[in-house]
């Protein structure tokens, strides 16, 4: 019998990327086969299945791990199921009021983002708990019947129940939930979806889960059906979750809020798994695409999972940390009224795109600056399938230069654009690392996305970072992360008590462990295959900043060390509060990274072209290398440019690049 094959397929804004481990003799590069095709926005499943077909012809025992944008897009566009929200009497408007702040401080006509939940589909219920979870107003059977009748009349497709203080005591929510089951639509309880304090955030999370269920569930079920029809009944669909793990299609539909960042999580999970394979400590990731750049700090050990925010809506479901910067390859350059150079926030997007795409764009973008500076190869972009137009880029930059207040050479302008774009990225990278108490000089930079490698060494130089790692297939790296994603559940519960002694903490974790294990067993795992990680989320009594520590001895001492590192002082007299306990349950992880034997030898250039490298000072002819032709152990010295199907890497003078055992390009400063 042929072994099962695993495919990772990621639906992106422009492209759908697919990757599989190459079979013997299939001619794949570095052990992988990659396929990219345009996304089919109206029916994303079409491109997903076509991409799979290209790599694994049916029938086959295939495990398809899918990074989906369904949940994200549904939240961003508001195309959601008809939802009824049930809440404590007096608080029907809570979802509409939110935290009463406005997103744009200086908007004269602010439109703060809030859940699109019309008031007429909110039902108030007479009940009340106090801050300890004790009953102030009991929930009567008559009231439950009244609420069910009122909800039924609203013909919901999904129901969310959010009651004040339910994270302390879920009894009222559960009784309502049981009664509402009679309506045979998904019912979500805030005390189950996100048993954490802060009512708006918890309600919003439960609401999003209920509103997504009727949209995401059927879409995933139909994809799985089609998969099994074509590839055979043993084919299985798994979905990437925001927490970097995966789950079966059914479980994904049952907890759609966990898919809110399904797409980007793949890249972050892959970066962390490559860092683990390479033995790297904490790393900063930089994912630079067409319209924006995502940066994240990925610490080792416990995953740095955080509550998420999508389209301005807070979701307590934990996801990998992600910070979006408004600069990508398509960001537009312009002069401000006082003659200073700005890059972004406007973007040429995918249509018309940068001027050099030749699709009608006239304004200079970051990508045009790269091309003019000779850092992109007009005939080697996307493996030559997508020729770039240097004249168009030059014209756009010349137009911008001509409109400058004082004369500026086009080339200097191109470099200026790249400088400003890089400074913006540096600020974002600093914010995410320093905010967590990490000095960037202690971190390695993992850069991917089509344009990550163009800025990476430059950023590392500026920030004093020791090493840059450009993973294989940087432009399809999110799909790579899907391959490595284990089945996972992340469960969190607020505790809000002084940190109890180790022995007493077990009781707090046990119910979460039991639930996570049960859910994973329903996905076909045995208890022995499940690995449990227990995490304490701690903070100083009354403080906002909190840290995640692995459950274990000396938690208090480790907390004080963290406080010192992050804030520069300790307050040992202050009580330490256990904010919440978190359980991460993982199935067996597929090891995506197999070390190959390295043979040290110089790489061979395929071309020499003049390039302007700010990192190296001035324009000069530099060698160009083809990444696909490089094997573990190949090395080269900067200045040089490495072209690849899905991304380009600049190696400045004074830097060396070597392909490591996993096929990643590692850039380091030349030792003197």
């Amino acid at each position, binding site marked *: 019998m042929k072994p099962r094959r695993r495919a990772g397929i990621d639906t992106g804004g422009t492209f759908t990327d697919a990757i599989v481990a190459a079979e013997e003799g299939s001619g794949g590069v570095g052990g992988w086969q990659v396929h990219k095709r345009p996304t089919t926005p109206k029916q994303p499943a079409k491109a997903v299945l076509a991409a799979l077909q290209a790599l694994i012809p049916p029938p086959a025992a295939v495990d398809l791990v899918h990074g989906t944008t369904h949940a994200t897009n549904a939240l961003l566009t508001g195309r959601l199921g008809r939802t009824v929200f049930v809440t404590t009497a007096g608080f029907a408007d809570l979802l509409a009021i939110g935290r009463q702040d406005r997103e744009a401080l200086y908007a004269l006509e602010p439109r703060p983002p809030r859940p699109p939940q019309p008031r007429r589909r909110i039902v108030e219920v007479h009940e009340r708990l106090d801050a300890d979870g004790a009953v102030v107003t009991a929930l009567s059977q008559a009231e439950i019947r009244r609420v069910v009748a009122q909800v039924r009349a609203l013909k919901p497709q999904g129901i969310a129940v959010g009651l004040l203080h339910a994270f302390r005591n879920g009894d009222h929510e559960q009784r309502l939930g049981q009664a509402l089951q009679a309506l045979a639509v998904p019912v979500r309880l805030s005390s189950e979806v996100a048993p954490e304090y802060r009512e708006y955030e918890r309600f919003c999370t439960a609401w999003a889960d209920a509103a997504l269920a009727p949209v995401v569930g059927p879409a995933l079920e139909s994809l799985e059906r089609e998969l099994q029809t074509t590839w055979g009944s043993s084919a299985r669909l798994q979905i990437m979750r925001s927490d970097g793990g995966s789950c079966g299609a059914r479980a994904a539909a049952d907890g759609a809020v966990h898919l809110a960042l399904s797409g980007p999580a793949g890249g972050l999970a892959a970066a962390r798994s490559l860092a683990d394979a390479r033995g790297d400590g904490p790393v900063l990731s930089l994912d630079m695409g067409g319209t924006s750049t995502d940066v994240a700090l990925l610490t080792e050990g416990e995953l740095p999972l955080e509550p998420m925010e999508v389209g301005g809506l807070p979701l307590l479901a934990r996801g990998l940390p992600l910070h979006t910067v408004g600069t990508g390859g398509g960001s537009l350059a312009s002069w401000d009224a006082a003659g200073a150079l700005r890059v972004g926030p406007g973007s040429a997007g995918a249509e018309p795109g940068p001027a050099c795409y030749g699709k009608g764009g006239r304004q200079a973008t970051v990508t045009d600056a790269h091309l003019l500076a000779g850092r992109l190869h007009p005939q080697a972009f996307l493996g030559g399938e997508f020729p770039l137009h240097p004249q168009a880029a030059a014209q756009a930059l010349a137009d911008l230069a001509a409109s400058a207040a004082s004369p500026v050479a086009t080339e200097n302008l191109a470099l200026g654009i790249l*400088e400003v774009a890089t400074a913006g990225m540096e600020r974002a990278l600093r914010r995410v690392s320093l905010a967590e108490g990490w000095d960037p000089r202690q971190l390695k930079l993992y850069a991917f996305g089509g344009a990550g490698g163009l800025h990476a060494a430059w950023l590392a130089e500026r920030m004093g970072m020791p090493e840059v790692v450009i993973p294989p297939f940087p432009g399809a790296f999110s799909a790579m992360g899907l391959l490595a994603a284990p089945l996972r559940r992340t469960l969190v519960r607020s505790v809000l008590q002084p940190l109890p002694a180790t022995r007493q903490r077990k009781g707090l974790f046990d119910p979460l462990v039991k639930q996570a294990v049960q859910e994973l067993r329903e996905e076909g795992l045995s208890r022995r295959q499940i690995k449990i990680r227990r995490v304490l989320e701690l903070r100083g009594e009354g403080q*906002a900043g909190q840290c995640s520590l692995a459950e274990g001895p000396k938690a208090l001492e480790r907390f004080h060390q963290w406080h010192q590192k992050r804030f520069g002082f300790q307050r040992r007299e202050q009580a330490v509060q256990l904010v919440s306990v978190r359980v991460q349950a993982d199935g067996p992880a597929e090891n995506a990274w197999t070390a190959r034997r390295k043979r040290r030898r110089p790489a061979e250039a395929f071309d020499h072209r003049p390039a302007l490298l700010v990192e190296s000072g001035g324009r000069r002819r530099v060698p160009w290398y083809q990444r696909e032709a490089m094997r573990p152990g190949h090395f080269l010295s900067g200045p040089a440019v490495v072209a690849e199907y899905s991304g380009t890497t600049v190696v400045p003078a004074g830097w060396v690049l070597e392909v490591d055992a996993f096929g990643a390009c590692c850039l380091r400063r030349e030792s003197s």
Partner: protein
Amino acid sequence: MSRARKRKRNSAAKLTDATRLMVCRHLLASVAEEMGLALQQSAISPNVKERRDFSCAVLDGRGELVAHAAHIPVHLGSAHFTVPAVLQEVEVQTGDVIVLNDPHRGGTHLNDVTVVAPFWVGKKRLAFLMNRAHHADIGGAEPGSMSGATDLYGEGLCLPPVHLIRGGKPMEEVWKIFQANARDGEARKGDLLAQCAALNRGALRMQALVDRLGETELSSAMTALLDHGEALTQALFRSWPQGQAQAELSLDGPGTPLIRLRIQNRGGRLLLDFRGTSKQVAGSWNTHRAVTFSALFYVLQALAPEELPETSGSLRPLSWHLPEGSLIASTFPAGVAAGNVETSQRLVDVLLQALAGLLGRDIPASSQGSMNNFLFGGRFSNPEKGDFVYYETLGGGAGAGPHGPGADAVQSHMTNTRNTPIEVMEAELPVRVRQLAIRRGSGGRGLHSGGHGLIKEVEFLEAARVSVTATRRRSGAPGAAGGEAGKAGVDSWFQGTKKRKLTAGQSVAVNAGDRIRLATPGGGGWGKAPASAKAKRSKPPQSADPAGSAEH
């Protein structure tokens, strides 16, 4: 080392000035941002950590603002008044931290406690780092320190610029005085510690910038940033019609003082003439000129087509007549606690109205015009639990504009603080929130209707002193372009079945079981309402249900 330095010089030399400016702007902004993160994460009180009522700034060696991380517009234009006031009174050396809150000597209002530290490179004072956080209490007659006083003495502890830390050594006496004069002194001390820690973080980052760019480069970049801000504001003024306009509005605080403004835009300078504004009043409704500048900065930022840098350079192209001793440029010992939060909102309305006259542009109707400051405090009956004190500001209706209806129940203009979650409020304080709702029907009618205010009703589980400091309690926010005014706010006190109206600025003693309800003002409507049809309300998420409950 020498090689690294050479590399730096090489790359710097190749940059055009326009580029270097923007690069340095990012780098300095990241110093301020990092201070803000450090402060928010390590502070103790909900007002700082949850509501983010603070700001952080980097100033040059003379005290000109070069970078700012603020969530609070009311702090925007005030930072550059601080360092000159400090330098006039004390000598600053390495390792010093100066604390102050005197509104007439570098502060804003007493609750905003400011810490400032010089940053030295060798013998040169290259910069100052500073942050300002609103402390929930600073002493005075009433919990929360924002009501009941007739002058500054009554508003609470007033700190002129004094050393909090000298040469790295905490001045214990000052800490003790500070802690002894504010309610819940432990939390106050914790917040102040966090403010100092944030300064340390800022200093570390400044040092890294000096190592990287060199002191000369950094210093000239700061100068260039100020010039750049100036040039941008000049360009903004030049793009506006030349000419004059005026507006006036009164406050419904005691004595209904008037703010009168004439503006003149000519040759890249904007003249603001506040002559004719009422004299400073007894009570807390006055502002220092710093707050007047903050309001102006906010308005310019909101009207500018692209972001104005938050530097004091951006304010250079302004001329003004600010009558000394008036409501909006008060002098010692004028009380100012409410001026910061209320008069500042009215200043925005006056400025927007005057500029609407000049620009002839469609400017939205007035927003609620108040911050609805809700304050209370007392002692737990269980003596082990000590004191409690609480402060928050409430959102209201935003003014409608040419693009659509005003948002409901949202913070407007000079503040953007978040609310305290009910679950946090009830866990930490002896209260039960009975209702939090949109106050339907309170937005002014119009072609686009004003946003509705909100209702918050709180039941007290212990006896407490409560005050509501608010305006727009007599007249609502005016509409624009033919729209109607929003409803004025109403604050009530329920004792059993007895209901009383609270007067703004009044403090009352409530018993356990009493309830206080704030109903905040709606925003003004925009455009004439069609005769028969209902005002258009598009369907943003916060849109009201026409069939919803009637106004409370």
